[in-house]
């Protein structure tokens, strides 16, 4: 039993760390998020050169064949630098769906393009009424000859404005909330019938509302089997949730460390405020929350993610627990920074905002608590077994 990185993982970690150090100092980042585009193409090219865009993809398509632990390493370091380029939407979310469901032809044509950095993708799944329910899909797709015609509305699609392709979930059959009857389509973002309303998010990322009006999609651009996309969506969103949790853990580390440093340096009443026990204990509790968050992330990353029940339980446990840590560490960081905490100019508020929005991403704490409980509620649960299985 060890939690050390392998040699390859150490290299990966060092690589992403130096990328962030060399290319993502605070001023540079501020310029990126203020720019029209909201990301930097040059950085994306560097990701491609470093091989980062291929981390999770199968070697057969030019990827590195990485697992959740490898994505954790990338995302944790991205979290530390608040890297805004759309890695999670493109590589993990859309890329995950294409790897999971794509035909040989689709995989051969799209995955190498993602890995080389030529294209970016985004996944449009949420709708105004769906909240976090992946099965709640009103957007419709009706077969008409060789084309499907899509109509509907997708909410808060991260990275859509930077994407050449969107993957859209639409209902081809069944009731609004039925798990069966959901189909995925890959479409060019410039297609007629697709309108993107782009906007910045509170944490300085970019997202879009996607309006779909009589969008024609060829049968060839269905991803996976018609009506059968739900299981894959849930699985890839789960994997993406672990990635988001990894980013959050990186952010929490920065919040904890920078707040500790700030308190050591900040002087009031003639001494460092870190000399006050009330401050010390708050900092200790931040550190404990960070360690617990990191631990439950490790639990999820080392769980048997190929077993769907195990995966659901591990992911929801991690997201719910890390959500709690985000709130405590984030709010404490702002509080202990005092006036410096609430201003836009100082870094800490930006880390807090990003962490808080990760708290919402793919379902908030309550949402995942409920999912976890539903999975474990039947009296004497198998949780005891589950934990020992994940260790064995």
């Amino acid at each position, binding site marked *: 039993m060890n939690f050390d990185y392998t040699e390859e993982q150490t290299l990966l970690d060092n690589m992403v760390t130096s990328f962030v150090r060399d290319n993502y100092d605070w001023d540079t980042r501020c310029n990126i998020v203020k720019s029209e585009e909201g990301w930097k193409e040059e950085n994306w090219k560097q990701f491609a050169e470093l091989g980062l865009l291929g981390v999770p993809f199968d070697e057969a398509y030019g990827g590195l064949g990485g697992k959740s632990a490898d994505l954790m390493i990338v995302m944790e370091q991205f979290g530390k630098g608040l890297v805004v380029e759309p890695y999670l939407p493109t590589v993990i979310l859309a890329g995950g769906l294409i790897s999971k469901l794509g035909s040989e032809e689709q995989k051969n044509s799209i995955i190498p393009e993602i890995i080389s950095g030529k294209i970016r993708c985004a996944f449009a799944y949420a709708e105004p009424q769906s909240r976090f329910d992946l099965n709640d899909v009103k957007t419709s797709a009706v077969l008409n000859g060789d084309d499907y015609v899509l109509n509907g509305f997708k909410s808060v699609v991260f990275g859509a404005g930077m994407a050449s392709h969107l993957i859209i979930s639409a209902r081809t059959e069944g009731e609004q909330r039925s798990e069966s009857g959901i189909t995925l389509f890959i479409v060019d973002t410039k297609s007629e019938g697709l309108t993107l309303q782009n906007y910045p998010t509170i944490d300085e990322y970019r997202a879009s509302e996607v309006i779909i009006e009589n969008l024609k999609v060829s049968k060839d651009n269905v991803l996976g089997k018609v009506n059968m996309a739900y299981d894959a969506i849930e699985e890839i969103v789960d994997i993406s949730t672990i990635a988001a949790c990894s980013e959050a853990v990186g952010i929490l580390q920065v919040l904890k460390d920078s707040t500790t440093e700030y308190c050591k340096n900040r002087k009031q009443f003639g001494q460092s405020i870190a000399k006050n026990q009330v401050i010390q204990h708050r900092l*200790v509790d931040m*550190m404990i929350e960070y360690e617990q968050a990191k631990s439950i992330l490790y639990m999820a990353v080392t769980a048997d993610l190929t077993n769907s029940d195990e995966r659901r339980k591990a992911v929801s446990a991690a997201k719910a627990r890390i959500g709690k840590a985000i709130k405590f560490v984030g709010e404490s960081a702002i509080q202990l920074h005092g006036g410096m905490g609430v201003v836009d100019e100082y870094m800490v508020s930006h880390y807090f905002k990003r962490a808080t929005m990760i708290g919402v991403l793919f379902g908030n704490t309550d949402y995942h608590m409920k999912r976890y409980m539903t999975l474990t509620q039947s009296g004497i649960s198998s949780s005891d077994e589950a934990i020992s299985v994940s260790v064995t």
Partner: protein
Amino acid sequence: MDTAFSNEDLKFQSEIRDFIKTNYPQELRDSINSKRKLGKELSREDLTAWHKILGKHNGWSAPSWPKQYGGAEFTPTQKYIFEQECAKAECQYIMPFGINMVGPVIYTFGNEEQKAQHLPGILSGEVFWCQGYSEPGSGSDLASLKTSAVKEGDHYIVNGQKTWTTMAQYADWIFCLVRTNPDAEKPQQGISFLLIDMKTPGVTVRPIKLMDGSHEVNETWFDNVRVPVENLIGQENMGWTYAKFLLAHERSGIAGVARSKKAIERIKQIASSEMSYGEPLIQDPAFKAKIAAAELELSALEYTELRTLAKDSAGKGPGPESSLLKIKGTDIQQAVTELAMEAVGYYANPHLGTTLSNEYVGPDYATNLSGTYFNFRKASIYGGSNEIQRNIIAKMVLGL
């Protein structure tokens, strides 16, 4: 990153499982269960029977001890497995005072005679130890202790009072921190580590009753107690070093993860039988959420402990993370004892096993759950209160 058990570990796990199945006495299980339910004191035999059985088997009573002193010298992973299996089977836990506390001090700092005299009895469970650290005026501020030891020829004359001496009523020996130099510059510098035979004239033990009515702890008085100088561990006035070593030594199991896991399983069983709003309590959203929250915290803590163990086995040495394990471990223990009490509703009330009533009332599973809740308020206070643990992390980890 690799959390998989090796084949040897898995073999070890089934070996432990089989051993417990074959060797844990049913009479002991029955005796302890019936006393627990009535809130009755466990006997010395109850507390040591399992220790004695393990002591006869490859040093399993002392998982951390080196083989040369008769211990099992388990790897950190093996220790973890051993604790898991013992907790799953609800084995009586081994009293820590000999095995985890004074034993390692003796084999690390004691002389050959002391090792030969004391280690075999600690290992076998024949000799019962207790701890003489705290004093009425020295709780968290342990170094302010006043019990004095004055050298007179080949004896120390010990005078003073220790308190919170757990299970002193059964103890054969006590290890004590005593003040040998009242004029030392710093209070830590005048302290020595003494082993004292409880049968020595002048030693008096008086029970302290806890709020659940249990008798676990005592006051121990020393009135001109003559202790042979050969019972001094290491050097005079160096006792604080040994005391600190002792406190940091045993980290494995400090969080009590395996036992809390078992306790949550028990609560789920209880909550499946208890009814609320016409449904099993386990279906109640508020109660269910509290169980789930405890499970998540425990799952995180389990991996915090595993990370610590993995660091240990890689030889990276112990750190002050034990304070984190203590804080979170006791938080969860307290949350779990509270949930258990909450689960039984009105049947939290009966206080059985007193001189006023000796009969069972209510469901079998409900007895003494409130007693355990009240008893466990001690967990965040003993062993260095959780506030002191935060001070330690603030200083040692965060550098404040």
